[in-house]
């Protein structure tokens, strides 16, 4: 798979090296002004320059910003550095550590640091020590309920107003590090327009996790390296590059389920094109039919339901073929059923071909509709959850029991045998009970 790198950066060399190691082919576009247009979606971006057209699976923007809120340049003026979390929406918990490390690094350079967050997170090991270290270095922690940020365009000062429901405080700063923003290169508007990215105030690409997964954008397959706030540039860039390559590697994997269009039936009406929330349908002019972009498709099935010509189906799922006798679908809960099954795998080798096991994190996840749907493909369905009082997810086993009884009612109403559905509660240390039950069911 080709990966397009847009923009000039000191780190392009390292990035190319890392991508090649992953077995990807990096294509460099140093001068972004040469690019005329970028079309397509993940898996098939078509990048047009004056000379040629390149098809790439993913796009990484490395263009470094020429002007950004510099933490090094306008610094020693007495104003604090502000690290803002949980804005505009709740930041993921893992960002706390990155934010704390950042605060400690800045505070170690004798900067005043304010750490604003809506929630104080202490879960996760080692965080207590980070909090302690940050406090010792004089980082001020402020919890807020609501935040309002205005930027004075003449002076470049951010005015932050915080309320916690009782008091209101105002903070002025030049240096605002926000969880969800990163600045883009010298001509942000142009690249953003090319890639159809959303910009805030014509400066920032909106992402959602600047600290830890900093290169994700709102678009699938478009990554954005940008630059960092200079203090620990190399380290942070390397982290970003590692994250990006691993994310692309994940994209490279084969999708097993996706929508398929039968060109013979397709009326080329664009209905699926308009309905698809993942932009996975594209016109295929050669066949005069729509085609599916497998990489972008999430197999949600909306296209199947809207197609007026019944031309779309989800591949990898055979509908209406009827079930084979003595086949069993097992839904097992992660805390008990999965571990118990692991203990008896060796003893059930002879019946394993008849069983299909799905692991759910909690029995509460199972719904009656899901079970009844499975009965199309399997003769019997077995749901295994924890014992009463042993559920770790607030009585998910009781919820699953309700769903099972609902499903049984649905079966009864449809005139089907309700014994095709079996529910049992085990603990992970009772594998033999489970084994007996499965052997009974598959005969």
């Amino acid at each position, binding site marked *: 798979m080709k990966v397009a790198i847009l923009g000039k950066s000191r780190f392009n060399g390292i990035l190319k090296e890392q991508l090649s190691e992953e077995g990807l082919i990096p294509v460099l576009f140093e001068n972004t002004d040469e690019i005329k247009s970028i079309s397509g979606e993940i898996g098939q971006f078509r990048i047009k320059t004056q000379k040629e057209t390149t098809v790439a699976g993913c796009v990484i923007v490395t263009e470094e910003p020429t002007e950004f809120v510099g933490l090094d340049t306008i610094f020693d003026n007495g104003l604090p550095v502000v690290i803002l979390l949980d804005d505009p929406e709740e930041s993921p918990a893992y960002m706390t550590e990155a934010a704390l490390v950042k605060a400690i690094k800045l505070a170690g350079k004798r900067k005043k640091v304010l750490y604003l967050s809506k929630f104080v997170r202490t879960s996760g*090991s*080692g965080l207590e020590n980070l909090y302690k270290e940050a406090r010792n270095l004089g980082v001020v922690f402020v919890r807020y309920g609501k935040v309002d940020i205005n930027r004075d365009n003449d002076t470049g000062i951010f005015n932050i107003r915080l309320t916690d429901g009782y008091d209101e405080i105002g903070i002025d700063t030049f240096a605002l590090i926000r969880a969800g923003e990163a600045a883009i290169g010298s001509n942000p508007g142009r690249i953003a327009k090319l890639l159809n990215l959303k910009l805030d105030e014509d400066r920032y690409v909106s992402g959602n996790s600047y600290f830890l997964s900093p290169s994700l954008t709102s678009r699938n397959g478009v990554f954005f390296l940008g630059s960092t706030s200079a203090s620990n540039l190399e380290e942070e860039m390397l982290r970003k590059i590692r994250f990006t390559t691993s994310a692309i590697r994940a994209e490279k994997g084969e999708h097993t389920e996706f929508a398929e269009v039968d060109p013979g039936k397709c009326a080329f009406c664009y209905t699926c094109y308009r309905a698809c929330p993942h932009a996975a349908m594209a016109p295929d002019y050669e066949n005069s039919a729509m085609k599916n972009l497998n990489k972008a498709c999430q197999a949600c099935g909306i296209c199947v339901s809207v197609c007026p010509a019944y031309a779309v189906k989800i591949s990898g799922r055979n509908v209406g073929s009827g079930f084979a006798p003595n086949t069993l679908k097992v839904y097992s809960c992660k805390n008990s059923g999965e571990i118990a099954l*692991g203990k008896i795998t060796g003893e059930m080798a002879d019946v394993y071909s008849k069983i299909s096991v799905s692991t759910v994190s909690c029995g509460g996840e199972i719904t009656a509709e899901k079970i009844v749907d499975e009965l199309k493909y399997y003769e019997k369905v077995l749901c295994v959850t924890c*014992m*009463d*009082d*042993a559920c770790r997810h607030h009585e998910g086993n009781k919820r699953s029991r309700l769903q099972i009884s609902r499903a049984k009612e649905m079966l009864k109403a449809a005139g089907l045998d309700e014994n095709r559905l079996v529910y049992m509660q085990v603990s*992970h*240390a009772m594998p033999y009970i489970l084994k*007996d039950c499965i052997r009974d069911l598959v005969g």
Partner: protein
Amino acid sequence: MNHRTLIIGGGLAGCTAALELANNGCEVTILEKSDRIGGKVRQYGCKAAGRCNNCGLCLAGDLWNQVENHGKITIIIGSRLIDVLGSKGDFSVIYKSGKGVLSLDRIQDIIVAAGFEEFSTVSSSSLEFNTEDGIISGHQMEGLFSRRTNDGIFTGSPGSIAFIQCLGSRDVREKAAYCSRVCCGYSTRMARVLKYYYPEAEIVFFYMDLQWVEAGEYLDRLENEGIKFIRCRPVKIKAGKPNRIQFEQPGTAAVVEKDFDIIVLTEGIHPAENAERLAELCMLKVDKSGFLKNVKGGEHTGIYLAGCISGPKRIEEVYSESLAVARVILGRKANDGGSL
């Protein structure tokens, strides 16, 4: 340099600590004397009877698989500790395994988690534990529980079952004046499971006092379920078919004989067989019952104790203690600025 921790003993305590350390980037080596990790807890069975009885076994869950497949954990099976050299922050350890006498260098911390012995394995008394005769030790009972099927625990259905409490605990003759703390818990849970499978069976407890059970409504509930409690220590146990127990009827001076199909001897926790040797090697103190104690905290010596090596503990206590030990090590590592 990577932070490296040696754990002596791969039971619940050792594996819990190992996983916590390894998940936070430490290199961990486990010395295990038997041929697989898991120790005694791995052989235990779930004690749920219709609903969860809070035996704590679920805390172990998938632990063994996770530890066995973790990239940062090295397990040396069939090994025996020979000597510990060096001091805090830089230990060298010599051990013997199937490959001969080898050494491990540059170890920052040592966790001693060598566990305990069940009374039936160290007992010198003439009682023979035999599942076929129906005299069963607590440990054998656990084995039966772990293999339980839909039909129950035993092959037939027993008519009467006796539990004899405090075997090898609170007994100066057996050098165990202490309470083993876990036996009341596991035996009453077992009794509830037996009552669940065999509601017709008569279940009788012979006890001195029920330390962990007497508090609260638990005992009332057991009695309501039809489990009988007789406060006395049996005079004699005669093996045979059926097994016969001679005991003094409380309140009278009469010695009564009663027949039981199955007698469960609720055995207690005794110190690990190599506890004294470990104390010598790691410079630890042996208390008067034979359990190990720290002379100085692990923060000063680099040697930590986890699990039943330092006294009888329940599963959840061992679990939380081992996690705490691992986190102390991780905290110290963070303070030292050790690289993750």
